[in-house]
Structures are given as C-alpha cells and as structure tokens.
C-alpha cells in the first residue's frame, strides 16, 4: 500500500496543469508514527487499512447513511465512529494518560474477550458483584464480547486501541447503568457515552436514536433517563480508565459510587434478581 501511494505521488508529480490531481499527493500522503509500519507492511496494526482524507469523508458519509437506513448494521456504526472520532479519541487518550489506572491500561493493553474471561470463577461470584452481573447481562441479552468489529480506519496505533477499548467497554457500561440492549437502553447508554467521550458517532446516535422509540418510551427518556444519563456522563470518571478485568469481585454499587454514577432512576430490567439496583 505504501509502494502504491509512492507510485501514485510520482505519477501525479510528473503531470502538469492538473491542479485537482496535484492535491492527490497531499491526500494520499499518510502520517505514520513509528517504525511499526514496517512490521505490518505499511499498516500500523493488523486490522489497519490506510485511507486518505477523501476516502474517510466518503466513508463517513456512506456509513452514516447506511447506518440510518439499517440500524442493525453495526459495522457501519463502527466505521462512522472511526472516521469521525479523531479529535475525541485524542482527548480520551489524554484523559486516560492523566489517570494512573488509565495509564496502566494504555501500557498493558488488555482486551476483553470470552477467551480471556474465567467464566467458571466469575459465575461463582456472589450476586451483586460486578463480574456476576456482567455475566448475567451477557446471558440474558444473548450477546458475547467477541462480536465487536476490529478498528480499521484510525491512523494511529494508540488511538486505535482507545477506540477498541471504547467498543469493548460498551457492554460493561450496560451493566454499570443497568440498561438492557433494546432501543431505549441503547439510547440511554449512547447519551452517557456522548456526554463522556464526545465522539460524534455517539452524539449522532443519541440524537437520532429516539426517532425509533415509541411515545411512552420517549416520554420516559425525556423525563428521567435522558437527564440522568447526561448528568452522570459528564460528572463520572472516565469509564475507559477503569481496569475492569481486575474488578470482577467488586460490588456493583461500590463500583458505581467510585465512578460517580448514580443508580438508575427507573429499573428497566424486569427481573427480580436486579432488585438491589433500585435506588
């Protein structure tokens, strides 16, 4: 890919009088950070696809339209997040660096995957602990942490990790906020994330998600859940800075208190096991 962009640059430099094509030299030039690029033959990490600004713009537009037309296309939501989130990712990374636990995460780069979780130990934990509730959430909503798409279009290896961490923490946020994976729950979590991270994809999702809601749920959102999510999102500690993998035994309420998150005003999960989360 690098050889290709080099060939393109020389090809266009020999042309004259095509001012529009000269800009391709700028557009195809990429800013790579270190010698890492040699390791993955021009890419910064295994799933990296280098793109020019024009391609990113078209990707952002196309994925936005595709995600709006078909909200089940999670890969399009992911691409939208990657192509529009450069500034927000930089801010997030700086926040993580300033937090001691976040700094550890940036160094150690843990990944949340089914293979790295000790399921037997986690299911043996008492009710009310973070790990037990997370497993319950996974089972009830029939999701696994392995279905997250890889980051492809972020042109910085550390920011790509931050993006990946953000995706993997999303499920944990559902558990922390006690929100199910239906449309209302997703919108609430998106509102929280938008207030916390400032990622344009979250903001867009939070603004357009409510359009798919029924009137009663919309009322619930506007009256109690929405303001709660926004308030907590802005005052909570950076959720990406928490080393969740070492906190499975911690009590959920205690963890919430540590993160500055109030318990949810409405219990959306209709199971009796969740009674402890009622405020």
């Amino acid at each position, binding site marked *: 890919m690098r050889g290709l962009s080099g060939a393109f640059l020389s090809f266009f430099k020999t042309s004259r009088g095509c001012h529009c094509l000269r800009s391709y030299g700028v557009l195809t030039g990429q800013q790579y950070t270190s010698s890492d690029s040699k390791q993955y033959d021009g890419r910064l990490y295994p799933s990296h696809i280098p793109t020019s600004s024009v391609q990113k713009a*078209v990707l952002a537009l196309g994925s936005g339209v595709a995600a709006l037309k078909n909200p089940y296309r999670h890969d399009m939501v992911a691409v939208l997040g990657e192509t529009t989130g450069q500034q927000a990712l930089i801010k997030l990374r700086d926040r993580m660096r300033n937090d001691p636990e976040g700094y550890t995460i940036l160094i150690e780069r843990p990944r949340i995957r089914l293979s790295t979780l000790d399921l037997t130990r986690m299911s043996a934990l008492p009710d009310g602990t973070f790990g037990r509730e997370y497993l319950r959430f996974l089972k009830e909503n029939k999701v696994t942490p392995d279905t997250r798409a890889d980051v492809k279009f972020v042109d910085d290896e550390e920011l790509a990790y931050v993006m990946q961490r953000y995706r993997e923490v999303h499920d944990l946020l559902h558990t922390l906020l006690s929100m199910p994976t239906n449309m209302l729950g997703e919108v609430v979590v998106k509102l929280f994330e938008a207030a916390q991270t400032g990622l344009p994809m979250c903001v867009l999702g939070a603004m357009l998600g409510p359009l798919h809601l029924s009137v009663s749920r919309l009322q619930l959102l506007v009256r109690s859940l929405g303001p709660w999510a926004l308030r907590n999102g802005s005052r909570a500690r950076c959720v990406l800075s928490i080393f969740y993998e070492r906190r499975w035994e911690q009590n959920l309420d205690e963890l919430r208190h540590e993160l500055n998150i109030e318990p949810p005003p409405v219990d959306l999960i209709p199971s009796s096991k969740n009674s402890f989360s009622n405020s």
Partner: protein
Amino acid sequence: MAASVRTLVRRVLSDFTRNIHHVLRCPIKHVCCRAGLTGCRGYSDSTEGRSTHFGFQTVPEEEKAGKVYKVFESVAKKYDVMNDAMSLGIHRLWKDTLLHIMNPQPGLRLLDTAGGTGDISFRFLEYTRSMYDRQQRMRAKSHQAPSWQDIADRYASDEAGPPQSHAVVCDINKDMLKVGKQRAEKAGITTGLSWVVGDAEELPFNDDQFDIYTIAFGIRNVTHIEQALQEALRVLKPGGRFMCLEFSKVTNPLLARLYDAYSFQMIPVLGEVIAGDWKSYQYLVESIRKFPDQETFKEMIEDAGFFCVQYFNLSGGIVAVHSGFKL
C-alpha cells in the same frame, strides 16, 4: 509435501484419463500434442514454491483458488448491487454489447463459465427467444396469403416446438450459483437453464459440447489462464465461438488516470459501505491491474489454438470483448 504429491498424482491421473477419452474419440494428430502438453504440465507442477499474484500480493499458487473462493463467498449476496454501484449501471450495457456481438441464433448451446449470478445466461435466453419471435413474425409477414397446404405444413413443424436454446451456468462458487438460482426463480425462467459447479481449469463436460463459450469478468480470477483457454477449446464444438468479456487496459492517458483514481479511492470504500468488505474489493481493483492487456491476451488466445481472434474495446478500453473460433 504429502499434499502436493497427492495433488500431483491426482492431476497426472486425471490428465491421463482425459487423454484416453480424447484418444478414443479424436483423430491421431491431436494425440501427440495433447499428451505432450498435459504430460509436461503434470511434471512441471511438482516444483514447489510456485507463486502467483493475488491482486498486488504474492501467494503460493495452490492458495490462490481458495482465496478467490473466499472473496466471492463473502460478496455473493451483494454482488449485483455492488456491480451497479461501482460501474454506475454501465456493466449492463457491457453485457448487452457482448450479446450483440455474439448475435446467437435460436437453438444453440451456451456455456457461461464463471457465470455466477447468471447475467449472461439470462440475456442469452432472452435474446434467442426474442430472435425466434422476430423470425416467426418475418416468416408470417412474408407468407401473406398462405395456401391450405402451407398452413397444414406449418402446424406440423410447430408441433416439434421452437428450437430450444440452452444455457449452462458453470461457476466454482456455490454461493454465487445459489444467488443466480434465486434470481432465475424470481424472473420466472424455468426451462433452458442449468447450474453446474465446476472449475474453469478443469470443466466437468465432455469434448465438443457447446456452440458458444463465454467467460464474463471471470478469467482474471483463474490461476492458470492458459489452462482455462485450453479447456474452452476442448468443450467447444468445431465452429464454436469463444467470447471473453474482461477489464482491460485503458488507452487514453487522461481517462486512465481518472479510472485509476476512481478504482483505488472509491471502489473499496463502496465495498465497505455497501457490502461491508473492503478487502475483497481491493482485490478486485488490483486483479484488474494484473491482467494482461488486449494484445497480450489476444496472443494467449491464439496460442491456445483459436482462430480469427479479435477484440473490441468498450468504454475506452476499460472493458474489452475478445472473440475467437475453434475451427
């Protein structure tokens, strides 16, 4: 090591059994050159480490077919949508032009290799059917005042039914054929169409079977193009026509630059947005650049044994139709 020896033995055995069939049926002059060719090919395959191109990557030869299979497996469902999006619908005109150059008469047998979702075969059946209708109309017009004898004769001949044109769609990928079958059902085409799984380098048909052999946007994905051409020669009847529709080299330099920019910048992006697959469409545009140009491909077709080989450039050379005859 064991795997390659096994494939070598299988190849040599299949070549020799094919030779035996060929010998039993054909005049002597074919035997010597056939045996020589396939014998040489069988032995030369034993050298390991032969690599070929997969787009701009280099991969071992044995792997290319599998990788191409995976590409089309993942794009099968969105294949037609992506074709329309990438070519802005122009691919339909290219395929229509192929049919016009072919100008098939009713009653012919077509082999649509790498036919995938069946675009060429559907057009072939439609063309021959409308040609048959037109011929009937012309006959009716010229026969304005038929005698009773003429009418009785016509009833007798019509009972035999119109000459059945038949199209066989052959593709190595089952998912593409599945999509094609669904399209046929939706369009209501029930007769005159067969769907066969097969490799263009080793077609599952006997010799001298088909009047026309087409391969549209498929031959650049074949690992050994010469072998595919040989197979085409084998399954065609004497007098049969070989037609290939494929991306080729653009002659105009300005158009070439625009085409390159569009291919490398836009097409993988479209692939990502519409089909969720960047890498497959990156392979697509790279494989176009790796394919030989019009003249080189014409020489390859002549080397395979076809006569009267010519090519027609469409859209300034973006696409070329190559045609040759087995005589």
